[in-house]
């Protein structure tokens, strides 16, 4: 009994550590006073100012654009790559995976800087350079999610389909794809998370005038804290909450369905 309550207290303390900063931001976003501790009454004016702030909404749009496009491109490139790598002999495979590990293991700052050096040499920094950089650090996550699925796949079923006269494309669609799909999706999701939260790589590869939320908040924070940021944090927190809830709920329902099907069999 004592052990149980000690455990509860421990969970509670960590919970407090994780959420206290967020709660403070949320409370301050409704505070009608610029002070960080005095409650000046309820207001929505920071939200209003947030929506009127063109720089922030521009950065928000840029962030969404970069996240979606880079995740999409990385998923396509990474899935194809995983299929190709899977067909390779172990020596070639090891080489490809070794190169894939470089952006995963390298420090963000070095990844960002090394790409900046390359881009500046041959081109100008702009939106496309940020996209290329994001795709580069996203692809490994897709490959590492798809490859294990391919390894679990029974190679004989694919070949049996070919023997029975299926075209490679048809066999892929009917046999390979359904089995690697969860890996492709979780890879895409991870890619999106990484893009969304990235600061260092974007900071070094972006051109002048292009800002994602991370780089914009960074520049703003160096000047000082504006209360609009509290409102932005609150909104982003609830977006994340809702998205994660939907995903969690969705996947647990799917798992249940899969389990029921297994039991019927």
């Amino acid at each position, binding site marked *: 009994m004592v052990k149980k309550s000690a455990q509860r207290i421990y969970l509670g303390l960590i919970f407090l550590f994780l959420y206290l900063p967020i709660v403070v931001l949320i409370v301050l976003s409704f505070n009608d006073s610029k002070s960080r*501790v005095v409650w000046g009454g309820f207001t929505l004016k920071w939200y209003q100012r947030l929506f009127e702030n063109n720089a922030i909404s521009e950065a928000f749009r840029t962030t969404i654009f970069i996240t979606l496009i880079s995740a999409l491109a990385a998923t396509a490139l990474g899935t194809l790559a995983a299929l190709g790598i899977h067909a390779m002999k172990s020596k070639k495979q090891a080489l490809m995976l070794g190169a894939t590990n470089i952006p995963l293991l390298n420090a963000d700052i070095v990844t960002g800087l090394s790409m900046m050096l390359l881009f500046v040499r041959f081109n100008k920094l702009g939106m496309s350079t940020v996209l290329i950089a994001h795709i*580069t650090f996203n692809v490994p996550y897709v490959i590492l999610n798809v490859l294990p699925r391919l390894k679990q796949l029974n190679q004989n079923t694919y070949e049996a389909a070919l023997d029975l006269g299926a075209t490679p494309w048809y066999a892929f669609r009917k046999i390979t794809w359904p089995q690697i799909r969860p890996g492709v999706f979780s890879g895409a999701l991870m890619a999106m998370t990484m893009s969304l939260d990235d600061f260092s790589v974007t900071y070094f590869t972006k051109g002048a005038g292009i800002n994602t939320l991370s780089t914009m908040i960074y520049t703003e924070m160096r000047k000082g804290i504006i209360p609009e940021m509290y409102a932005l*944090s609150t909104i982003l927190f609830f977006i994340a909450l809702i998205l994660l809830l939907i995903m969690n709920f969705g996947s647990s329902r799917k798992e249940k369905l899969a389990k029921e099907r297994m039991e019927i069999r």
Partner: protein
Amino acid sequence: MNKLRRQLLAGPYLVWIIGFILLPVFMILYYALTNSAGDFTLANVLAIAEPIHRKALLLSLQLAFLCTLVCLVLSYPLAMILSTLRKNHQNLIVFIFILPMWMNFMLRILAWKLLLSNNGVINTILGVFGLPSLDILNTPTAVVFCMVYDFLPFMILPIYNAMARIGQDVIEAARDLGAGSVTVFFKIILPLSLSGVISGIIMVFVPALTSFAISDLLGGGKVLLIGNVIEQSFMQEYNWNLGSGLSLVLMVFVLVSMALMGSHDPEGGGAGVW
């Protein structure tokens, strides 16, 4: 024949690897080993020995160690408690502990800046109880606080995942054979969760060693980490050769720390979290 054709699917990615993974690394090497005139030199790499750079590197190592240690000490018991919860509660509670990770990295730094500032929430609460105020903003302590906050989920998740994989039957078998809690912990739980601990350590130590944004925003310009030195030499002094030389040194430190942790598992780098 068929197999060869399927290998070609990786063709676009191979081009991408050469163009955007290997070539950039080569660029860093090139700049690191030349001076502004393009002649070979080791001066940029050896510059790490200059007192200001050496001090920054040592401070980075020190803070990264501290941050990793605190994360480990906090996460291990947490992961253990989480893995003993009833299965239908588990998902929800794990969800609660990773949700903060989904908020923008910069906004999490902002939150800590608010909490720790002189007239911030923590000091006000301390003031109410008549306790002396904590004056830690713009010190390395504040940087470590925020690093722990930012990277804690990267430690919790791999350890939790490793522990969740330990079969309950193994533990029960040990108990049936007369093992006490201590024996079960040292003979079963600890060895079987070690892989999670190692990937957790890597996933916290590397970003903590190389980050520059946290120390920049919470250190008030007084906490100079190796990341800050590199960033400044690129963005303020435009000394790309020096910045590249120091980056090369940083890369070596990252590789060495990973080799020490014995990360032969390709998943240990990043996918381990999930």
